[in-house]
């Protein structure tokens, strides 16, 4: 059980300088990761800010400043995941996007819509591992360490997510080609 106790001014000052310096160094990367997971700029901004607030509140748990990035990444990813969860569970119907697809999915906006919708149809946990894998290019082991989950769970979540994406995007491509 954590207690809220006052902190000495000088103590806090030293910490705050260190915190702001590290936060500033990692801000861009953090914001981009939040964008990759949440997709919406405003949500990503808020999530990034909230994650830094959380990081400051938990500052005492960071023992080694050189470990800031993985430590903070964990906070940020959890913040993003909670935001995805708070959107409530949505089953995504991508039939509307399907109608836009012409069969050429080489980077068109329609293709982006299809992939974005397919990603949105994944559960929050699956969205997170896909973003870490294909945006951050982290290995399975790195993802496992960032999320504090077993490697096998990462693999199974990626496995499931890719199958899910495969089926949804294939369906969109197929129908789009017919049209």
């Amino acid at each position: 059980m954590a207690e809220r106790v006052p902190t000495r001014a000088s103590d806090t000052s030293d910490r705050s300088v260190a915190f702001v310096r590290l936060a500033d160094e990692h801000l861009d990367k953090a914001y981009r990761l939040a964008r990759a997971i949440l997709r919406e700029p405003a949500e990503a901004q808020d999530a990034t800010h909230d994650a830094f607030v959380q990081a400051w509140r938990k500052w005492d748990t960071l023992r080694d400043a050189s470990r800031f990035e993985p430590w903070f990444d964990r906070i940020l990813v959890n913040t993003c995941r909670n935001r995805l969860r708070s959107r409530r569970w949505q089953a995504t119907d991508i039939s509307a996007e399907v109608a836009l697809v012409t069969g050429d999915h080489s980077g068109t906006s329609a293709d982006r819509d299809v992939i974005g919708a397919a990603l949105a149809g994944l559960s929050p946990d699956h969205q997170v591992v896909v973003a870490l894998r294909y945006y951050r290019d982290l290995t399975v082991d790195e993802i496992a360490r960032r999320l504090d989950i077993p490697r096998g769970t990462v693999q199974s979540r990626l496995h499931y997510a890719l199958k899910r994406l495969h089926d949804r995007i294939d369906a969109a491509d197929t129908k789009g080609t017919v049209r």
Partner: protein
Amino acid sequence: MTDRELEQRLRAWYVAEVGGIETAPADLRESLAAIPATTPLVRRPLTRRRGLTLLAVAAVLAVGGALAVGSGLVRPKPRVTPAPNVAVVAPSGAPASGTPSPTAAPLRPGASIAFIRTVEKKRACFRGTATCPTSRLWIVGADGRDAHELFPDGVTNQGDLAWSSDGTRLLYSDDGSMYVTDASGSPPQPVGTGCAVPCTGDSQVAFSSDGRSIVFIRDSSGVTMVATMDLATGRVAELTSTSSDATAAPAWSPDGKQIVFFRFGEKDGGGPVPPRLSAVWMVDADGQNLRQVSPMTLAAQYPEWSPDGARILFESGPVTGADQDIYAVRPDGSDVRRLTSDATSTTATWAADGRILFTRGSSGSGSGGSPGWWTMDADGTNAAVLVPVAAIGVAAADLQGTRPTWQPTGGAAIVPPPWTPATGIAVGPPAPTPSPTPTPPLSPGFGWTGSTPSPDGGPVGETATLLADGRVLLAGGCTTAAVLYDPTTGTFTPTGSMTASRGGTTATRLVDGRVLFTGGGDCADANSSGIWASAELYDPTTGTFSLTGSMQTPREQHVATLLKDGRVLITGGVTGASPTTGTAVSLASYRLVETSAIVLKSAELYDPATGTFSRTGSMSSIRDQHSATLLQDGRVLVVGGGGEGYASVSSADLYDPATGRFTKTGSMKTGRWLHTATLLQDGRVLVAGGRSPQDSVYRSAEVYDPATGRFGSAGSMGEGRQQHTATLLADGRVLIAGGYWSDGQHWRVLSSTEMYDPRTGNFSPIGSMGTPRDGATATLLDDGRVLIAGGEDIGNGGGVGVASAVLYQP
């Protein structure tokens, strides 16, 4: 679309969406400096020995609290901040639209309703304005007056409200941490629940009716589960049977004997890709007797038990195209009743007087009336508006998010905080292996024969090898555990442990009876990685594994084939970069960077006489997850596999042990990987199923004739299959079992089996083996039966190991 293409499209999507963003918004950067000045630090929890008295904890908190008050860090007494527009409960005059709505009787005097209101807070929220929306905890009096924010100085998101049954305490969450306060906004105390690694977070807490326990959701080891804590003793029980990737919103039964919650379906395989539907589930407080209460078709969420224990309320979920309404069901799952029909009614809770408090939106298709908080009787009658949306201060579309919770009165007093949690202990059975679709009965010829559990509860045996004494060794995969199956007793028993976990390894019985395991990926836990070059031998006489020489190249997803001279041919597979410096290297491992993994065309030979590997010729193509079959003349037929860009390979090579060279032979009509290749009694090789270059799964089969060096058609299986098994029976037929099927729009793991008869050249179905599985093992026993064990089904979170095993009697 191949897997590689999918990955490319995903990466391109992220580049398009995010790659162009070089820097974060300037106002976001500017806000960082203000965080330390405006956010109190939370000190690292003190490590306490279990057993410290509550008195000691109380003393710490008392001192801390006094200091905190002195420093001004505690939240001040709530200010009464009127909600915008109207601060009265009952509307006067006509409702917002449509038919005037009846007005409910006012709430019981003295009670309050806690709710969540999204408000614009003055904080840097980076939208180019000085404010941004946050979820805030609000209270409104029973008479509809004095609506105010409980902690106006907060900056974070709050939610998950739950009253104690006596109404004296209110639980809530604040940015992932849980707190307890009361209707007057007393300084919140953190609610510790002993979450420690592997626990990554506790949330969604609620009191029991007797005030002696809380129930919450624990996120641990990648799954979410229901957990309880006895407030007097601190005993934390993790109800492992409730584990899933989306278990949520637990609530006690009034007698404290059961807990309801909701979670999503175990699997959505088969049929057009459906939404994941949720249902209300129930479990005994000791973790036993897990059962589903509501039908999956209603996508039920947020269950609430009635005070008399007779009914459970829930709301139907936001499934595409479906309406949201409130339902009630008896705890035994009978008598499901729809209480509302306006399609916008949600967030139902029980009020202290037995009525139901709920939110009703404005866009319903039914006879909803005006939006706001409503009440109705337990049977759904006498619905009446209680608080109009204007008085709540949110948009009608946001009503559902308010989740109003009526403060009860007269319930049992709670164990007063602070509460000291103990380390969580798992209680009840483990979560059952998901099998959401009705398990088909075993067809004639199949029979269950135990299971292959490992010490950690998962299945054992990525490979299965028939030993000389008739037993079967199951080993390999992401565990070092190994088991022996004895056909005479039908039981699995542990044997020695492998020296390392090896996913994607090979197992080959040598002439002397030992079993050679080569390479594989180290996947035992989150900290392991890399692909082994090492190999080890299992000695059936001692029941132990020991290292032998190492391969020249680390490999996984390769193939090992016993040659007639007793040596073992190793072909293809996936390898990677050289070792990472500074990483502890045990055995003969190489630490690999996953993204640099490459598929091999090289091959090696293992000589049991010397215990060493040596290079031999190379194949005509890179291959992994291919097949390599010893022909009757001693040569080895290498077929298909994954090639460049994950495109499957149609070519085939013949390896001649006498020359150590691979030469191309006839090609298949199409590329295949994840197929099976079976040497028939007439010397031909049956190649069945697999995945195509276009990522469809084949029904077709081809047969290779060594006499002509050509492949010919061998008909089609009843279902497309990859990662299935194919076993040559004593009578010359081939048993095909399980596998994974997809046509790009649908997918499922198969429990079906079929038989190939080389005399007729036809496949014919022979029924179900009971459990869907792909990547299983199938071993022909000395008595002619076939042991089918292990494999994987697909659950919510991906692959789920199948521990059960079946025997097939031809």
